[in-house]
């Protein structure tokens, strides 16, 4: 396992290098540089433009710039953003990445759960009208023209019903005299969510392992109690209403994302279930008279889980890519929106930096899938 991990890490570094090469040259293939933005500015004389170019090393040939860039990346520096000038690319990304991750992680977990649940059911009722209706509905949502669907959701739930705010990350009026910075608060919220999920996970693992009666009750109770404690703690800090504001802004994007992505998991679960249902152990389980529900949930679904988990990890890795559209429509200041605005504003360092982060994310996800496989499927050995 250790040897495998080392060779994988080397491969990942190589792939990352190739990825950076491709992305760097694609993004830099366009003519001109950031000083072109000031070409029409009468207050900026030509020598000032030249100074600007030499200051950022833009007058050097591209391959030289590239070598400098690669050296910087592997020493952990991503350069300076042009559109947020004094801030570094790493700083901008460190602010934006958690927002994207929070949004997509929540949505992916929901859609994974919903998709797995529905996939189990439609695989079991193959050929019935339930299956056709669910499949067609799910596929329609899956391939729906995302900006339009997101706008319909905004129009329906935010504009007409007024239940949720229309886009954005927070309400500026509420935050004007806020005693705390939004990023700090958001960081704490993420920590809370992490703690909550760890507690729930531990309780689930313990109750399943011990095989005690009333496990469901204990699980439910522990979830309710820990959520209650967390909410109480937030109330005591006095920033509760601010945190609630962010949560309120998150609800609609998360709901929309869940609806448009659950079908992927659902169809994958269905196919995986159908393949598993042909196995002999399913026949054996039925032959010994187990109830259908037990066969479905305990024998088939668990064995069908492997490809679904893979897709879960990969879909998390590609959150930034999918985020481009949803974040633009909901004006959610995350990585996707940063990428688009950087590309439009010719802020090339930020665009390349965002891509490189996506690449690192995807590669880590590949590694994570390989490691998770060993735990999920005891037949796999490295």
């Amino acid at each position: 396992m250790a040897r495998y991990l080392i060779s994988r890490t080397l491969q990942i570094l190589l792939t990352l290098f190739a990825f950076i090469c491709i992305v760097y040259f694609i993004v830099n293939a366009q003519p001109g540089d950031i000083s072109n933005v000031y070409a029409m500015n009468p207050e900026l004389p030509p020598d000032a433009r030249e100074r600007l170019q030499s200051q950022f090393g833009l007058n050097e040939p591209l391959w030289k710039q590239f070598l400098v860039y690669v050296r910087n990346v592997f020493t952990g520096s991503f350069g300076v953003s042009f559109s947020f000038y004094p801030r570094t690319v790493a700083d901008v990304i460190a602010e934006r990445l958690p927002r994207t991750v929070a949004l997509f992680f929540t949505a992916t977990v929901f859609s994974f759960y919903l998709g797995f649940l529905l996939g189990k059911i439609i695989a079991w009722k193959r050929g019935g009208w339930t299956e056709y209706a669910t499949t067609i509905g799910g596929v329609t949502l899956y391939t729906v023209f995302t900006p339009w669907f997101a706008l319909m959701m905004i129009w329906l739930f935010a504009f007409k019903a007024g239940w949720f705010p229309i886009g954005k990350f927070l309400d500026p009026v509420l935050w004007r005299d806020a005693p705390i910075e939004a990023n700090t608060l958001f960081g704490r919220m993420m920590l809370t969510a992490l703690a909550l999920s760890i507690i729930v996970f531990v309780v689930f693992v313990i109750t399943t392992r011990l095989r005690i009666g009333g496990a469901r009750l204990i699980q439910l109770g522990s979830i309710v109690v820990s959520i209650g404690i967390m909410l109480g703690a937030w109330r005591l800090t006095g920033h509760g209403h601010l945190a609630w504001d962010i949560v309120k802004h998150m609800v609609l994007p998360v709901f929309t994302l869940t609806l448009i992505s659950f079908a992927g998991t659902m169809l994958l679960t269905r196919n995986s279930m159908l393949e598993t249902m042909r196995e002999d152990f399913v026949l054996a389980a039925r032959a010994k008279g187990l109830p259908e529900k037990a066969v479905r949930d305990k024998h088939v679904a668990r064995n069908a889980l492997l490809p679904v988990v893979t897709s879960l990890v990969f879909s998390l890795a590609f959150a930034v890519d999918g985020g481009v559209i949803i974040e633009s429509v909901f004006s959610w200041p995350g990585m996707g929106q940063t990428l688009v605005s950087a590309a439009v504003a010719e802020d090339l360092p930020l665009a390349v930096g965002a891509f490189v982060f996506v690449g690192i994310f995807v590669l880590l996800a590949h590694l994570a899938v390989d490691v998770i496989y060993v735990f999920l499927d005891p037949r796999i050995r490295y």
Partner: protein
Amino acid sequence: MAVDVAPQSAAPSIRKVRLTLFMRSLRENWSLFLGTRIGVIGLVIIIFYLVLALAHPILMNTVWEERVYDPVVGYAFDETRQPAPPSRNHLLGTDPLGRDVLSQLMHSARTEFLLGLLAAVVTVTIGTTVGAVAAYYGGIIDTILMRFADLMVMMPGISILIVLSALIGVEHFELALIIGILSGFGGASILLKSQALSVVVKPYIDAARAAGGGPLHIIFIHIVPNLLPLSFLYMMFTVTGAIFSEAILSFLGLLDVRMSWGLMIHTTEAAGYLLQVGAYWWLIFPASLSITLLCTSFYLVGRAMDEIVNPRLRRL
């Protein structure tokens, strides 16, 4: 003497047998396809849009006056204010610039089909060739091609397309090529290689090699035909992806195209009618629903073909 006669008369009959076999498998697959139902629904929607796309040039040459109904430069002189609601002359109303929405819709349908088809053909051509070559040769060629495929799969597609089209001018043709190359060298070649691996170990490949068949002959005559069902299936998903990407890019106003469904919504957005869903529905729904329906239908057909091509999904 009889031994000499047999091969001569066998030549036409082999072709005949092949044709019969082909027709029989086609009939069998067709009835399987009809049995999936979701595929039939998809096919009906695709045919509907195909009819729309084909009807546009006919209508432009007969009933519709070009001055009024041209999808890009036409102007509805018979309406007093634009955008005009649906009327007898303009079944889906006019857009903020006074152009007929139905004409735009039908004109764009043709572009979407061409775009999707081109992207899918490029994808599958590259994917099948790469997959077959990698599986046949193995070794270092396989490693290089597959690592390259991994790299392509890693690319965040929509983001790359957005950046490319924001930085350099991209039209439909270039877009189809870019999508085709990205998915052809990426997902398609990985999938088709895994299928090709199960083909190269078949005895008839050894037989072809023993009979003196060269690598190119074996790859294109013996391996590739066996990959065609799967690549045809992959085409459907590529079409969905291509139409979707095009719609997103032209919705964001990043493509240099004159008319497309995404651009129709972009026009609506630019004119500020986007959130007036109830009052100006004909500016938003026809184009968005068309994108959704066409993407969905190709996806459904792909799913239905998956049920046929993938033996593990066959009914017991």
